[in-house]
C-alpha cells in the first residue's frame, strides 16, 4: 500500500510539471498564431539566451527554498563575482578563460559561505540575513570597483563568445544553464545528500533529531547558490559585455524567486524540482519576449509576471490540497481493508 501512495504522489509531481509545460505550449500557440515570426530561430535563440542566467541562479535558489530558506542576495552576489572577474580580466588581458570562470565561482562561493554562516551558526532568519547581504555585497561591488565600470573592450573576447557561439546548435550560455539544472536534478533525486536537503526542508526538527546536521546542509546549499550566482556573473558578462557596478544583476532576486515559485517549488520548503524551475524560467522568458513580439506594450510585462505567480501558487495550493486529501483517503481505505 505504501508503495502505491508513493507512486501516486510521484504521479502528481509529474503532473504538476506537465501543467507548466502545457501552459508553455498554449502560450507558444497564442504568440505563434498572432505573429508567425515568433517561431523564427533567431527569436527562439534570443529567448533561450535570455533565460540562461535566470536558469543558472534559479537552479541554486530551488535547493535554497527547498530547505525553507531564501536567498535575496543573489543579484548582488552575481554582481560581485562579475566585477571581480572583470577587474582581473582588465588588469591581465591574457588570463585564461577557465581561470576567470573559476575566479567568479570562487567569489560567488565566498559570498554564499558568508550567507550560510549567518543563517546556520548566526541563527539569523535567512530572509533577514540575505536582505542585509543584498545591500552589503552591492556596496562591496562599489568599493572593489571604485565606482568604475568595466567597458566592453576590456571584456575578453572568449567570455563574450560564450553568448555568441553555439558548439552543438545551442549557445554556450544555455549549455551552462542546462548543466546547472541537470546537476541540481541529479543531486536532489539521485543522491543521499539530496534526500537530506529535502528532509531538512520538510521537517527540520525531525531531520535534526534523526542526526542530520542542519548547519552543514544549510551552508552547503548557500555555497552552492553562491557558486552558481558566480557562474551567472560570467554569463551576464558574456551577454551584456559591460559590468556597471549599479546595474549588474540588480533586481535579479525577484525574477529568480518568481521563476522558482512558478516552477512549483513550495516557498515553505520541502518540495520542488529542478525541472519545474527550468520550465518556470522558460515560461517567464517566453512571456516577456512574446508580449514584445506580439506588439503589446512592454509595460504589461510586470503585470503579467505578477499575475502568473498568483496563478501558479493558487493552482499549486489546489493540487497540494487534493494530494493531501488523496493521501488521507488512501490511509482510511487501508484501515477499512484491515
Amino acid at each position: 500500500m505504501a508503495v502505491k501512495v508513493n507512486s501516486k504522489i510521484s504521479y502528481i509531481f509529474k503532473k504538476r510539471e506537465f501543467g507548466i509545460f502545457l501552459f508553455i505550449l498554449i502560450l507558444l500557440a497564442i504568440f505563434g498564431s498572432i505573429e508567425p515570426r515568433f517561431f523564427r530561430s533567431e527569436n527562439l535563440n534570443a529567448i533561450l539566451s535570455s533565460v540562461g542566467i535566470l536558469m543558472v541562479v534559479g537552479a541554486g535558489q530551488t535547493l535554497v527554498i527547498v530547505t525553507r530558506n531564501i536567498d535575496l542576495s543573489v543579484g548582488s552576489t552575481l554582481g560581485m563575482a562579475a566585477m571581480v572577474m572583470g577587474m582581473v580580466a582588465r588588469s591581465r588581458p591574457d588570463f585564461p578563460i577557465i581561470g576567470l570562470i573559476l575566479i567568479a565561482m570562487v567569489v560567488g562561493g565566498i559570498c554564499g559561505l558568508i550567507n550560510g554562516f549567518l543563517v546556520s551558526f548566526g541563527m539569523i532568519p535567512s530572509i533577514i540575513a540575505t536582505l542585509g547581504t543584498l545591500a552589503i555585497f552591492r556596496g562591496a561591488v562599489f568599493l572593489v570597483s571604485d565606482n568604475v565600470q568595466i567597458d566592453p573592450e576590456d571584456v575578453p573576447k572568449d567570455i563574450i563568445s560564450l553568448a555568441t557561439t553555439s558548439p552543438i546548435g545551442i549557445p554556450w550560455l544555455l549549455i551552462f544553464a542546462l548543466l546547472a539544472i541537470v546537476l541540481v536534478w541529479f543531486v536532489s533525486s539521485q543522491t543521499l545528500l539530496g534526500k537530506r536537503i529535502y528532509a531538512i526542508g520538510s521537517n527540520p526538527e525531525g531531520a535534526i533529531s534523526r542526526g542530520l546536521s542542519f548547519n552543514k546542509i544549510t551552508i552547503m546549499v548557500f555555497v552552492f547558490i553562491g557558486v552558481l550566482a558566480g557562474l551567472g556573473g560570467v554569463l551576464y558578462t558574456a551577454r551584456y559585455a559591460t559590468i556597471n557596478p549599479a546595474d549588474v544583476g540588480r533586481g535579479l532576486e525577484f525574477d529568480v524567486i518568481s521563476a522558482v515559485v512558478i516552477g512549483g517549488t513550495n516557498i515553505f520548503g520541502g518540495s520542488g524540482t529542478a525541472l519545474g524551475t527550468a520550465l518556470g524560467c522558460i515560461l517567464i522568458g517566453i512571456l516577456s519576449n512574446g508580449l514584445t513580439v506580439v506588439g503589446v506594450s512592454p509595460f504589461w510585462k510586470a503585470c503579467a509576471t505578477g499575475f502568473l505567480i498568483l496563478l501558479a501558487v493558487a493552482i499549486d495550493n489546489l493540487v497540494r490540497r487534493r494530494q493531501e486529501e488523496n493521501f488521507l483517503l488512501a490511509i482510511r481505505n487501508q484501515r477499512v481493508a484491515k
Partner: protein
Amino acid sequence: MSALSKSPSRFKVPGYLIGPILILTLAMVYGSLGSEYFLQPASIIFNTGRYMEIGLLALALTFVIINGDIDLSVASTLAASAGVLAKLFAGGVPIFWCCVASVFTGFVLGLINGLIVIKFGLPSLVVTLATLALYRGLTQVLLGDDVVANYPESFAGFDQRLVIGGNPGLPAPLALFFVAAIIFYYILHKSNYGIKNIMSGSNPSASNFSGIGVDRVRLLAFALSGTVSGICAVMITSRLSSTISNVGLGLELLAITVVVLGGTDIFGGRGAISGTVVSLFAIMAVREALVIQDVNGQVQDSAVGLLLILTVLVPRIRSYYIDKRDRQKRFNEARAKA
C-alpha cells in the same frame, strides 16, 4: 542584561532598543566629527523630510510583520496610488479628490493583498511578491513614459511647510510622522486590536480557538499597510511635485529593514512601535552621517545592511554563550554532587 537589572535605577531600556540607540549615538558622534553643523537642530530637521515616507510605511508594516506576515508590495502600492493621483490630476480632477482617490486606491490594493492571502491560504511572501510586480506593472501601464508635473502651489512642497514656525520649526512630514507614531502606539500597545494582533502573531491557532478572528486581524493589517502606502503616495508626490512610474522603487526593502532593526520578530508575535521609531532615526542618522563623510550612496545602503545583521546577530550569539555557560555550570554542579 544582568548588569542592567542589578543597577538601582528604576528606568530600564527594553532590550530591543539597545541596538538602535547605540547605532543612533555612534552615528551622531561620527557625523559631528565630519561637520560641526551635523548636530544643529535646523540641519537635522531639514534632513528628515525625505525619510518620513519610509517611517510611515515601516509603522504600518510593523503590524503586518507582528502578524507573522510580510508585505513586499508597499512600494508598488505607493506607486500605483501615486499613479492614480497623477492620472486623475492630469484629467482635471481637483487635487483634493485626487488625494482621496490615492488613499482609497492604497486601501483597496492592501485589501486585495489580504484577501488573496487569507481566502486562498497562500503565503504572504509569495502573494506580495506577485503583487509587487503586478502593482508596479499597473503603474507602468497607467503612466507609461509620462511625467506628470505642474501640481498647484497649494499642493506641492509638503516637506517645506512648517507646522510650528520659528527656527528650528517643526516641518509637516515630521509632525505627521510623530502623530502617526503616537496613534499607532496606542493601537498596537493599548487597544484591543493591538493585543489581538500580537496574540495572533505569536500563536495563530491558539488565538483562533480563543475567539480572536485571526483572519480579520490579518486582513485589517494588510488594509492598514495599503492605506498608509496611499497616504505616503500623496506625501511623496507633494514632495517631488512630479510623478513617474518608478516612484518609490525599492522602498520596501528599506522599510522592512527599519522594522526588523527595531526588534520586531520577522516570524511574528513580538514587536513594538517604539523600536520602529528609534530604528528609523538610527538609520536616518547613519545615512546622513555617511553623506557628511562623503560616502557613496550604495555604500551607505550596505552600512545599513551590516547594522541590520549585527543587531540581529549580536544578541543571538550573546544568548548562545550565556546558555552554554549556564549549561556548563549546571553540569559542573551535578558532577560535584555526584
